[in-house]
């Protein structure tokens, strides 16, 4: 590679000026004339049969153009909503149509759509629609749903059980026999609501005579939405264009093909006018999928010196009312629950269950936060039981540098990683020994300091095509086009679909280094299926490991072609010409160079091209790495608990993360800040709560508590850099690491603070009331 200048530079994000000045264009800002507004009538019942939908009075309301129900639309669905393999090929699941046809399975499920001249008119008319339901008993709880006699959501499946599968290797019974210490613990992953700042939104424009459909959607996956719109609507894929304009956050919640994308498109086809639907927050909290909602039961076998011999985890996953497109992706948690540690046995079981709740699907981390919470709590449980410091327990069990590339019991191979070094660095930053002394002092004064560690690893960069084809059901490549224009400026088209990650900046940095074109002269385009070949979009911290590297490869191909053209222009042998910093010259004579601008002009003039060479200076790449990437790090959280109120205050938060090469360290830090905040959100604040009837009690941001800047400490961040050997840039993902790592760090700190009260586990979120109750459950007496 040429001398790296831009890779590693914390230049400012080019996306930000338009975003912070409100001049970015989100779905709701797309100008369209004659737009019809869609309002979705949603089920008010968690479980019911639809006896009838009375729309007569609503149809007469001002501004109403049409009202359509599931029965009206059913004949137009060429296929149900997609469900992907996601680690569980043999699961049972029902057909899921974008709108309920004769039964509803969760509060918020679409039952009718109102199409009107304005959203206000549509909502007014919506109040006049009467849906007659025959209420059925609802089941909300994972364990109750699979009890005998539980109300069954989908009769055709015979029960609420979707799957019950094993992921095991090694002899767990032998491990238990060998163990000095065995521990059983239940760990609960509460249900979370993703809460992107911009809720979803769709504008669909079907052109009647050309039979062409354009859809603007606030989505993470425009390319996949295009495919599924074509399949479900029965339109040739070549006639469908999907655009993801500015997307105000996703966190996994915009990773699936959603009912409203289909419904707006169908409505537009019927009416011959563009149809727009903008999700409001009221809908967002129940119509956009939720995350987590799992129970993990674990049995641990360990020796008294802290060695973990094996674990036996069971993951009970609440799928919600249907199996969402990537609903079983969360089973990934089971596959990576071994974490950064060696052990002899792993005996995992994953169970998926339907309940009358909003479907669950990927939420920042998707499986890895659950895995990390499990294994990092396991390390602390072992530490508590053996009386060994949690740092030492981790050291004892760590996969060491010399073990890399390490293969887990379940057969996944880590690309690289030095877990001891990140841990040591984090310990040094917090001054761990001094902290432990301070903790002991404070306890004497009735003050409760807690120190929590999380030495996480994660799998991301989805991923090698063959592996993802087998596991998830789709071959996931990175895609890029690099095109140098006549004037020597470049356009980069990527297959990832950023919604906050800063690809426009960082990928320009990557191309700039290879081509020697100034970063300002490189435009990065994305999120429009009309501009490039199939992209695999953005989720699973995959983009930079895949598409970022695809940019590098395409730019390298372009550089190679430029070098050949330069050799021709310099009348030199190809092998003698080198390309550096945007110039090509004969080795040793840099003064007689041709610039990329001169080469670009030549590339479009046949007379100046080498004989037989095609014109243009462009390359396309479908990049397929040799493995997943495995970022890692050590996070340490220090909390103080107010013994009188149970309130937790985070005093310090230290994070040392290794995501390989950092293209733009400031962007990496930004991802970490947001990620850590979200992980702290799960630990301290967030929980979706249903009442017994299946109504969401946390249906607004007054009750569903997302942390804000003033609720968080200043994060102290540092890095180690272990380049990934599986891609040319050496990058690993960082979009989810903060969320994956932080939740257990905070919870381990809280449990540590409560050690004098004999508390071994605290369920999330650690609300003041809950913590207070734990401290006072024995009348406030200490152990």
């Amino acid at each position, binding site marked *: 590679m040429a001398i790296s200048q831009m890779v590693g530079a914390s230049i400012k994000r080019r996306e930000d000026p338009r975003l912070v000045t409100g001049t970015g264009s989100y779905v709701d800002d797309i100008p369209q004339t004659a737009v019809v507004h869609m309002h979705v009538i949603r089920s008010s019942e968690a479980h019911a049969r639809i006896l009838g939908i009375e729309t007569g009075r609503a149809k007469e309301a001002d501004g109403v153009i049409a009202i359509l129900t599931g029965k009206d639309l059913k004949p137009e669905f060429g296929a149900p909503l997609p469900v992907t393999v996601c680690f569980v090929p043999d699961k049972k699941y029902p057909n899921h149509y974008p709108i309920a046809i004769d039964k509803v399975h969760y509060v918020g499920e679409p039952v009718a759509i109102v199409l009107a001249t304005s959203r206000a008119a549509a*909502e007014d008319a919506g109040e006049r629609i009467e849906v007659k339901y025959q209420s059925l008993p609802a089941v909300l709880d994972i364990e109750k749903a699979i009890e005998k006699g539980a109300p069954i959501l989908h009769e055709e499946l015979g029960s609420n059980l979707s799957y019950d599968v094993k992921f095991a290797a090694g002899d767990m019974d032998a491990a238990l026999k060998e163990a000095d210490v065995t521990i059983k613990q239940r760990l609960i992953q509460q249900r979370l609501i993703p809460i992107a700042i911009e809720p979803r939104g769709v504008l669909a424009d079907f052109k009647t005579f050309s039979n062409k459909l354009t859809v603007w959607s606030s989505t993470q996956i425009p390319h996949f939405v295009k495919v599924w719109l074509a399949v479900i609507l029965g339109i040739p894929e070549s006639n469908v264009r999907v655009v993801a304009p500015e997307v105000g956050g996703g966190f996994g919640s915009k990773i699936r093909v959603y009912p409203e994308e289909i419904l707006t498109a169908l409505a537009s086809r019927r009416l011959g006018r563009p149809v727009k639907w903008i999700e409001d927050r009221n809908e967002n909290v129940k119509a956009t999928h939720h995350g987590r909602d799992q129970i993990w039961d674990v049995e641990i076998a360990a020796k008294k010196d802290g060695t973990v011999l094996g674990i036996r985890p069971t993951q009970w996953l609440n799928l919600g009312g249907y199996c969402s497109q990537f609903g079983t992706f969360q089973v990934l948690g089971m596959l990576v629950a071994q974490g950064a540690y060696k052990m002899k046995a792993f005996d995992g079981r994953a169970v998926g269950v339907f309940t009358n709740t909003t479907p669950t699907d990927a939420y920042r981390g998707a499986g890895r936060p659950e895995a990390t919470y499990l294994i990092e709590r396991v390390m602390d449980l072992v530490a508590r039981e053996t009386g060994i410091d949690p740092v030492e327990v981790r050291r004892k069990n760590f996969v060491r540098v010399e073990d890399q590339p390490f293969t887990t019991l379940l057969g996944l191979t880590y690309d690289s990683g030095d877990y001891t070094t990140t841990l040591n660095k984090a310990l040094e930053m917090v001054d761990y020994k001094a902290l432990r002394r301070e903790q002991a002092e404070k306890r004497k004064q009735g003050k409760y300091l807690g120190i929590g560690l999380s030495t996480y690893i994660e799998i991301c960069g989805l991923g090698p095509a063959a592996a993802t084809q087998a596991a998830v059901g789709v071959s996931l490549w990175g895609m890029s086009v690099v095109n140098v224009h006549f004037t020597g400026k470049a356009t980069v088209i990527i297959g990832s679909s950023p919604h906050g990650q800063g690809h426009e900046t960082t990928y320009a940095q990557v191309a700039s280094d290879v081509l020697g074109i100034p970063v300002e002269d490189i435009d990065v385009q994305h999120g429009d299926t009309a501009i490039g070949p199939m992209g695999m979009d953005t989720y699973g911290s995959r983009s930079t490991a895949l598409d970022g590297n695809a940019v590098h490869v395409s730019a390298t191909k372009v550089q190679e072609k430029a070098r050949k053209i330069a050799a021709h222009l310099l009348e030199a042998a190809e092998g003698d010409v080198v390309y550096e910093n945007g110039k090509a010259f004969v080795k040793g004579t840099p003064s007689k160079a041709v610039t990329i601008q001169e080469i670009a002009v030549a590339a479009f003039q046949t007379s100046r091209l080498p004989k037989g060479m095609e014109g243009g200076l462009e390359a396309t790449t479908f990049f397929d790495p040799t493995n997943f990437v495995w970022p890692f790090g050590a996070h340490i959280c220090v909390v103080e608990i107010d013994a*009188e*109120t149970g309130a937790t205050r985070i005093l310090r938060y230290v994070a040392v993360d290794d995501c390989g090469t950092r293209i733009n360290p400031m962007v990496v830090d930004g991802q970490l800040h947001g990620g850590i905040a979200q992980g702290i959100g799960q630990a301290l*604040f967030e929980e979706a709560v249903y009442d017994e009837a299946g109504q969401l009690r946390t249906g607004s941001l007054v009750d569903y*508590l997302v942390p804000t800047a003033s609720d968080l400490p200043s994060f102290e961040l540092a890095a180690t850099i272990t380049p990934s050997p599986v891609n040319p840039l050496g990058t690993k993902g960082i979009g989810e690491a903060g969320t994956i790592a932080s939740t257990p760090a905070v919870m381990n700190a809280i449990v540590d603070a409560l050690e004098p009260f004999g508390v071994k586990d605290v369920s999330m979120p650690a609300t003041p009331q809950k913590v207070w109750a734990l401290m006072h459950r024995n009348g406030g007496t200490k152990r």
Partner: protein
Amino acid sequence: MIPAAFDYVVPRTLPEAVAELVKHGQEAKVLAGGHSLIPLMKLRLSTPSFLVDIGRIGNLSYIREEDGHVAIGALTSHHDIEFSELLKNKLPLLTSAASQIGDPQVRNRGTIGGAAAHADPFGDFPACLLALDAEFKAVGPRGERSIAARDFFVDTFTSSLEPNEILREIRIPTPPPGSRGTYLKFSRRSQDWAIVAVAAQVRVTGHEVTQVAVGLTGMGSHPIRASGVEQALRGKAGHDDELRGAAERATDGTDPPQDLNGSPDYRRHLARVLTRRALEQVTAHH
């Protein structure tokens, strides 16, 4: 989340505004800062067909001292209260409460009159105004009347204002020198509504507690005066054990609600802890 259709007027004077309210009867609602009413309308939990926006009536936003009282215009924003020099000196209880309401946007738009009229049991100003023995001046079709704080907060979202009355001014007796106040609010996030909060105004003269007023937020369907605490402390020297003992009575006569953030028991516990802390704070260094 679009409100039901409504009509809207912007009167320039109080009498005009009252006339509009009279004309439209039960259908009409006063709009001040809109930070309680508009969210309810967006959820269609409130569907007035007529809004009387009092926001542009002159001379309703002020803080001044007159005849032994501090007078605050109904349209005074939470922000202006938070940063008032006069209040910082004379009524720090109010500035401290104002600084803990919502976030800066809410404080810029919300008004003390709206906060009082809305009578939210979790609102921060009501308990303060109750503890400070405020007086509410309301203008209606039959002219102006004055309502004492203890009669003003009736129930959840219910004040004793008539639908055609407009709150014009809140008057608070200027506390005597040496009287100190503070508002301690306990919530899960910085901008949240209180789970429980305590407003305390105390004066220690020499070695005697000569004034003690404690108001509680979040302990019932309306703000409550912790009269048990007040009785226990009045006339005492204000020693630590006395403060502690008095604070134990913070829950006398309360019926705290149950919600996702707190059980009645937890709220009672918080009320006692926060009351003790508030009392310690306002009596420190005596």
